[in-house]
């Protein structure tokens, strides 16, 4: 009887549903898509962020879990500021240390270590600052540069408190003496300007009307002041309360200083770190409480530093500037326990923290520290729960909630919030990612969703669940710790990686990978990534996936994997500490085990039984390393392993391989398409699948089966109880 042949190519991704399409796979673990052939390529692994073996895990040697990680690329990637958090300390990674090893310098210490169920620190670049919030510690504003180094360590780190934590103390005005010469007397100062308006001195025209008080005789002069701080982001603090009243009578007629105006000395408070200037506001001359003169404050003078303790005010009433900001224009930072941040329409958006979990605050445009008293809204509890994150996309701000999603639209002054889903929500704020040309992808409690569209011009926002083919894997997710899920899209790999805690774990323990190169066909785009200890995840400007270890070291003397790593093509599943002679080094682990399992093939008629004779693996030649198949029948768990086969063309001379190729004699070679035939001996079956489990290099493009129908054998009757 002649055998029949079924060929499956191209191959698709994982489908865990039943039944499957022939091109689907039951399992694809630790494979990527080969960019040259679109086949499945096992050549993935991970390596140390600093790949040199001799520097061990420095500077992460004794660090435990890397709770959060952010790479802040500036100057088109010429500066990568790697910021990460471990053990309650926020670090930046100095890769230009003069010792040859990278160093981790502290930005902030004594921070709260997030519980397994809590979201980790949020990083949001805002102009030249990186806003860092974690819901417990005071939000900080880190500018990375400039940093002054001495002996390999920073003298000071440019990190500042976000927002104004206090109102400036009121300024203190010294009294005015009208009958003394230069100098001061106790808390009084006597300085005057001539009433130059009538003096007719050309060289002093520039100070006409300078000085305070009336030039007329015997007038009671009265002034009050307020002060504000201005910080390095251009934000102005709330105004202080009013100063004491300074009051004096203009000299009587016939005196030495008759007709003079006077100069006041005002003590002004020094602002917090990051303050770059102080602004002094002053009333007009209220003339002893003249009821027709309101106590309005006008801009008087800006002191362009944060160290002068007093300022002399000679600004005449006519030279005062615009009206001072109102009491509501800038208030003390309202979201000191903010967990989540995002930048939208030039404003910094923050949540109200765990105790105020449905409130949203936003700053003034371009000023992340300055908040109007009315710049907040409450999205309400309804059925959607608390806010779990923000994500700015297109022309709206996505407000993630536990069981719903809202969007903020509009512009500053007219922001409004609209619910768009009360069924889909997420606690995994670090899983929200934009995939170009697709939309916003995120991990919800029941799967991965994609959000597309916009609300302009009558448009709609649509949600679509895209993880249905891998429901079985998603179902392993530990909902209680899903806030620790992380995801990132890499344009280099054209993959979206999402790692989440599975099987009850308190940290990410399994990854699912969406392969963009597999989209669009009649297949699924998914594979699974295991054995990669991702705790936090981000990408470089070039699309390299950098992750922080989810466990790390237990402390000094525990030289296990710790710190930052990179998912790469290195044929190593991380590394391990070894003492080689006198040298302490980190050597590569064996490559990650890659697993490919075909779909369960029913040959188009599940009722008939067949005898599978051969499996032909359509793959690229790789050399003399062997692979074997394990074949299964009728969904049984136990398979039978074939003999190992070299990945060489069976009917040609072997291609040269490393270790035996001779430099200068043997040519460079390249992988070629070939078919490797594996004999199968397992009797008849209704359904068949095979699997490959290997640490060797493998690019698989398709497969074929040669089988023989088994006469009239059909499915027999079911068993009776």
């Amino acid at each position, binding site marked *: 009887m002649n055998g029949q042949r079924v060929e499956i190519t191209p191959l698709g991704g994982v489908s865990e549903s039943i039944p499957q399409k022939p091109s689907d796979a039951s399992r694809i673990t630790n494979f990527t898509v080969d960019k040259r052939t679109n086949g499945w390529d096992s050549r993935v692994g991970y390596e140390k962020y600093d790949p040199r073996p001799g520097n061990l895990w420095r500077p992460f040697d004794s660090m435990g879990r890397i709770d959060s990680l952010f790479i802040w690329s500036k100057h088109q990637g010429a500066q990568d500021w790697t910021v990460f958090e471990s053990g309650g300390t926020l670090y930046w990674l100095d890769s230009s240390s003069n010792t040859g090893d990278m160093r981790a310098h502290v930005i902030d210490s004594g921070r709260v270590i997030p519980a397994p169920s809590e979201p980790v620190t949020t990083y949001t670049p805002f102009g030249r600052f990186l806003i860092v919030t974690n819901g417990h510690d005071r939000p900080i504003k880190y500018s990375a540069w400039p940093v002054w180094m001495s002996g390999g360590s920073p003298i000071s780190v440019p990190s500042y408190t976000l927002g104004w934590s206090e109102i400036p103390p009121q300024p203190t005005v010294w009294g005015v003496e009208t009958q003394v010469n230069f100098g001061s007397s106790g808390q009084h100062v006597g300085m005057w300007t001539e009433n130059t308006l009538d003096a007719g001195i050309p060289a002093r025209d520039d100070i006409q009307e300078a000085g305070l008080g009336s030039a007329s005789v015997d007038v009671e002069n009265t002034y009050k002041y307020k002060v504000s701080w201005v910080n390095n982001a251009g934000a102005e603090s709330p105004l202080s309360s009013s100063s004491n009243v300074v009051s004096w009578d203009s000299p009587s007629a016939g005196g030495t200083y008759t007709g003079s105006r006077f100069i006041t000395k005002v003590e002004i408070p020094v602002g917090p770190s990051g303050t770059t200037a102080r602004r002094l506001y002053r009333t007009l001359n209220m003339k002893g409480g003249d009821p027709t003169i309101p106590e309005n404050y006008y801009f008087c003078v800006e002191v362009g530093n944060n160290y002068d303790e007093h300022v002399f005010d000679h600004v005449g009433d006519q030279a005062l500037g615009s009206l001072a900001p109102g009491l509501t224009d800038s208030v003390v930072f309202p979201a000191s326990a903010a967990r989540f941040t995002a930048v939208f329409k030039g404003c910094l958006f923050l949540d109200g923290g765990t105790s105020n979990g449905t409130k949203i605050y936003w700053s003034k445009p371009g000023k992340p520290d300055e908040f109007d008293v009315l710049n907040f809204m409450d999205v309400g509890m309804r059925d959607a729960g608390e806010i779990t994150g923000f994500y700015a996309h297109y022309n709206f701000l996505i407000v993630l909630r536990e069981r719903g999603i809202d969007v903020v639209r509009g512009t500053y002054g007219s922001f409004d919030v609209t619910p768009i889903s009360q069924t889909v929500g997420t606690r995994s704020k670090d899983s929200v990612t934009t995939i170009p040309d697709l939309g916003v992808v995120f991990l919800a409690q029941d799967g991965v969703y994609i959000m597309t569209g916009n609300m302009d011009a009558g448009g709609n926002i649509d949600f679509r669940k895209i993880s249905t083919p891998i429901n079985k894997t998603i179902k392993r997710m530990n909902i209680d710790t899903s806030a620790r899920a992380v995801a990132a899209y890499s344009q280099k790999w054209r993959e979206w990686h999402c790692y989440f805690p599975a099987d009850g774990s308190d940290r990410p323990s399994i990854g699912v990978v969406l392969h963009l190169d597999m989209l669009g066909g009649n297949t699924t785009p998914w594979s699974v990534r295991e054995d990669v200890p991702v705790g936090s995840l981000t990408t470089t400007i070039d699309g390299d996936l950098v992750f922080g270890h989810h466990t790390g070291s237990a402390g000094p003397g525990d030289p296990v994997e710790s710190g930052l790593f990179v998912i790469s093509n290195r044929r190593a599943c991380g590394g391990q500490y070894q003492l080689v002679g006198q040298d302490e080094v980190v050597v590569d682990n064996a490559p990650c085990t890659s697993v490919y399992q075909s779909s369960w093939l029913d040959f188009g008629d599940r009722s008939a039984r067949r005898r599978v004779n051969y499996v032909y693996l359509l793959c690229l030649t790789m050399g*003399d390393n062997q692979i074997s198949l394990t074949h299964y029948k009728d969904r049984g768990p136990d398979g039978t392993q074939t003999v190992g086969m070299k990945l060489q063309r069976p009917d040609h001379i072997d291609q040269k391989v*490393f270790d035996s190729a001779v430099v200068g004699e043997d040519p460079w070679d390249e992988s070629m398409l070939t078919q490797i035939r594996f004999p199968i001996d397992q009797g008849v079956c209704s359904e068949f699948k095979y699997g490959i489990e290997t640490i060797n290099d493998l690019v698989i493009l398709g497969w074929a089966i040669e089988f023989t129908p088994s006469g009239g054998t059909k499915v027999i009757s079911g068993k009776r109880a």
Partner: protein
Amino acid sequence: MSKRWTVFDPGSKNIVDVDGFNDEYNTQKGALNGGVDRNNLPGEYITRAQIKQGAFHKTHLFTGLLLSDESIKLNNGGNLQPDGLDYSLYNGGWRRAFDPVQVSGLRDGMNHIEFNCWQWQYRFTSGFSLEPGGVLATQENHDHWVKWRILYNGMIVLETGAMYTQYDNVTLSADFPMMGGDASIEVQFAFAPPAYNDGDPVDVVDSPMFTFAGGQILLLSRFR
């Protein structure tokens, strides 16, 4: 430029794959040609011996610069005091110290500019005297000063405060980003304007008040 990690890892008994080798080799080569920076190499990894000549894409040095604006300058003949600015010709304000220097062929990046000279000023006005019976110091009759600033294509990139010392060495230094193309560098000074007392000038005229010489401009232009 960010770091680079393994693109191809040749394994034992694998074929000598030219594509993989090229991928890895070209990635590293591309990184080097793309501009190695501090993200790729630790500090002090490259020593002076490895620095190629011409790393700064332009350097300029202009020397022998001195007060040359004849419209405000008094020739003092053979007197001990130098030729210099005179109040019969100068009433204050910013003045060009010398003709602007021109540079060309600059590329987008950063400029480091230094201006050095020595300066002299007659610190006191003529009415001031230390002699017994002389005029006491007043606000009007002392504290002459001079300020300097540097303009790059008309934009102020550096401005000093007032300097009060009678003789001094001036060293000005500024770093600033620049556009590619040609540039004009101008140095200006401002000297204290003549003082008046009740409308009457205090300062004498026909006597030098300020001058400078030995001026030098150093310009180092570099990529970013």
